[in-house]
């Protein structure tokens, strides 16, 4: 098909691999190529990247226009990317049948899921898969806590992995093999990306949403002032952030390339939990005129500014970003396009964020925008989680005078595994940088950042070890 149109998949790969090309820009394709043709061509390149195990290219494709195009390719791509993102060498307990303390809540929320799926058999099949995936995960990690909204996130993975690509419909019977892949992806995604939300306290996600004001201040100081983001945390963002927008938009079960799938593509391919925060900031910025208008119209309607801002932003967003909003798709396309080109976090901003983000947070470890982290075993991960709780409790007890460094007292195991992880990141970045293949997506500008940040991570870790021993 591609060659008939005069451009073979390898040509397209080369074009995409052009170092100077914006990954989001497919404009080098002949203008008579419509979106459908572009997507068909892109599918072929994704298949090739999967076949050839070209992971850097795969990620570049996932974070460009249309993401992974369809759920068949998405299953394979997510599986590949997640398994490269966090390498778990062994698990703490392979099978644990002790019920988790949150299973009652899980049951309640699963029961209320997929209400939009008309076919009862399909609906029940999805619910069953969702419940099994969630319960399996929590029984394996009893220290983690379930939160309302986690079921929305996992629903997206369930829909993607339950799609029968041949029929383009939800499979009524998911094979054991596919189930295993799904559980593994749920495990890695939860551990690497959602860990903050699964902690014992809401402080962790609240710390995360505190990054949003920094992003808005950077781009629109006036809006920052208006929303009083110097004084109040944008708690109205909590549902969107906790669910990576899956509470606002339902995953489509007909195989369509829904926005929510493309958002997840972007998060996975940027390896970053900053991405949902950037998306949220960009949505607010895209809606600033409406927010300003509503704000002005409602001054005087509220007793206090906290309620005014919260109500105005939540209302404007609710009317704009969900499935039912008529302009939603177009708005999301614009915001996704913007985010695809500006997802990377300015080092200065990251430094500011690090002052209040827990050291064990995915934002500073497993989903910080760096491509890979190896965790030696589930035990060190468990220790990481417990350390996060201790650090958070200390922070709560303490006047926020000295937030940096002092309470960093990892035991040797954690220090070592972090060091090993950081060193492997540095090595990986150097290695990648030095051996770019001609048909591999070149990301030289990113590599330099990665080397710099990895080196600083290594030196930070060394400092901590020296200080605490």
């Amino acid at each position: 098909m591609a060659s008939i149109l005069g451009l073979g998949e390898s040509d397209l790969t080369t074009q995409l691999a052009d170092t100077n090309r914006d990954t989001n820009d497919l404009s080098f394709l002949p203008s008579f190529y419509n979106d459908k043709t572009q997507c068909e061509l892109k599918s072929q390149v994704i298949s090739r990247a999967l076949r050839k195990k070209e992971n850097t290219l795969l990620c570049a494709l996932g974070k460009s226009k249309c993401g992974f195009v369809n759920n068949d390719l998405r299953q394979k791509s997510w599986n590949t990317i997640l398994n490269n993102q966090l390498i778990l060498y062994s698990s703490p307990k392979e099978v644990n049948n002790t019920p988790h303390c949150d299973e009652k809540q899980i049951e309640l929320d699963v029961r209320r899921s997929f209400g939009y799926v008309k076919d009862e058999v399909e609906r029940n099949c999805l619910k069953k898969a969702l419940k099994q995936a969630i319960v399996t995960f929590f029984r394996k990690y009893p220290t983690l806590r379930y939160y309302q909204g986690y079921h929305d996130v996992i629903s997206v993975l369930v829909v993607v992995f339950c799609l029968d690509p041949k029929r383009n419909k939800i499979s009524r019977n998911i094979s054991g093999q596919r189930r295993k892949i799904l559980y593994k992806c749920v495990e890695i995604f939860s551990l690497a990306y959602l860990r903050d939300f699964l902690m014992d306290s809401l402080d962790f996600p609240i710390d995360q949403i505190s990054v949003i004001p920094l992003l808005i201040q950077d781009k629109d100081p006036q809006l920052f002032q208006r929303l009083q983001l110097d004084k109040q945390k944008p708690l109205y963002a909590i549902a969107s952030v906790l669910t990576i927008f899956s509470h606002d938009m339902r995953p489509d079960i007909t195989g369509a390339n829904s926005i929510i799938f493309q958002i997840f593509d972007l998060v996975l391919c940027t390896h970053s939990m900053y991405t949902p925060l950037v998306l949220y900031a960009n949505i607010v910025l895209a809606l600033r005129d409406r927010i300003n208008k509503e704000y002005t119209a409602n001054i005087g309607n509220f007793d206090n500014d906290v309620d005014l801002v919260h109500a105005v932003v939540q209302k404007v967003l609710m009317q704009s970003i969900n499935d039912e909003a008529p302009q939603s798709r177009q708005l999301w396309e614009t915001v996704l396009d913007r985010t695809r080109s500006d997802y990377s976090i300015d080092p200065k901003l990251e430094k500011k964020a690090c002052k209040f983000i827990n050291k064990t947070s995915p934002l500073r470890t497993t989903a910080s925008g760096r491509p890979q982290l190896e965790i030696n075993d589930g035990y060190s991960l468990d220790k990481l989680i417990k350390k996060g709780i201790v650090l958070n409790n200390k922070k709560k007890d303490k006047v926020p005078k000295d937030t940096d460094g002092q309470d960093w007292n990892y035991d040797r195991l954690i220090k070592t595994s972090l060091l090993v992880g950081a060193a492997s990141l540095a090595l990986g970045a150097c290695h990648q940088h030095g051996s770019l293949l001609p048909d591999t997506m070149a990301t030289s500008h990113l590599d330099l950042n990665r080397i710099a940040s990895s080196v600083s991570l290594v030196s930070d870790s060394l400092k901590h070890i020296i200080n605490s021993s």
Partner: protein
Amino acid sequence: MSKPVTSIKLVLLGEAAVGKSSIVLRFVSDDFSENKEPTIGAAFLTQRVNINDHTVKFEIWDTAGQERFASLAPMYYRNAQAALVVYDVTKPQSFIKARHWVKELHEQASKNIIIALVGNKVDIVDENEEERKVAREEAEKLAEEEGLLFFETSAKTGANINEVFMGIGEKIPLKGPEEEAQGSGLNVTDDQRVNLDSPGNADGPAGACSC
């Protein structure tokens, strides 16, 4: 001439899945959804009702029921003039939780807050009395001791839902004509809004409004 408008900030509290959002959906849109999705964080909605010659605008903060979101609740009940503490008449645990919320509100919220204790899902009990796990008398006793309004409701059938809000509206001191000035700006807002479903209930809700 437009009627005087009084705004009431109202918060809903209660255990997960007792029907808080369903009560709001019934009140605001006169609608019901069998498997309503859980609320995460909090949802904000508004509704106006006419009480005598006054318009009361409810600013409703519908909170998440899961325990881990409870730490956000103070932000929503702070400055609230009214609260609905909701439990499920078929779930004894939810009534225990309701007691906790009443206690917390009395300790932490504004002194003059009007609290309504609401036992939801009476439709289940109406069909089969054996399903009732929280006796009406017990709830009435709590309401009397703590000075609460008390209603048993069904968001599913709509039974008693408007009465809860009307009851609250009647207990809140309404604005006199001299305080109208502040309320007049509302009309501008209302014209600009994108319409939510507006219920055609003549006696109760008077159409949703902006913020």
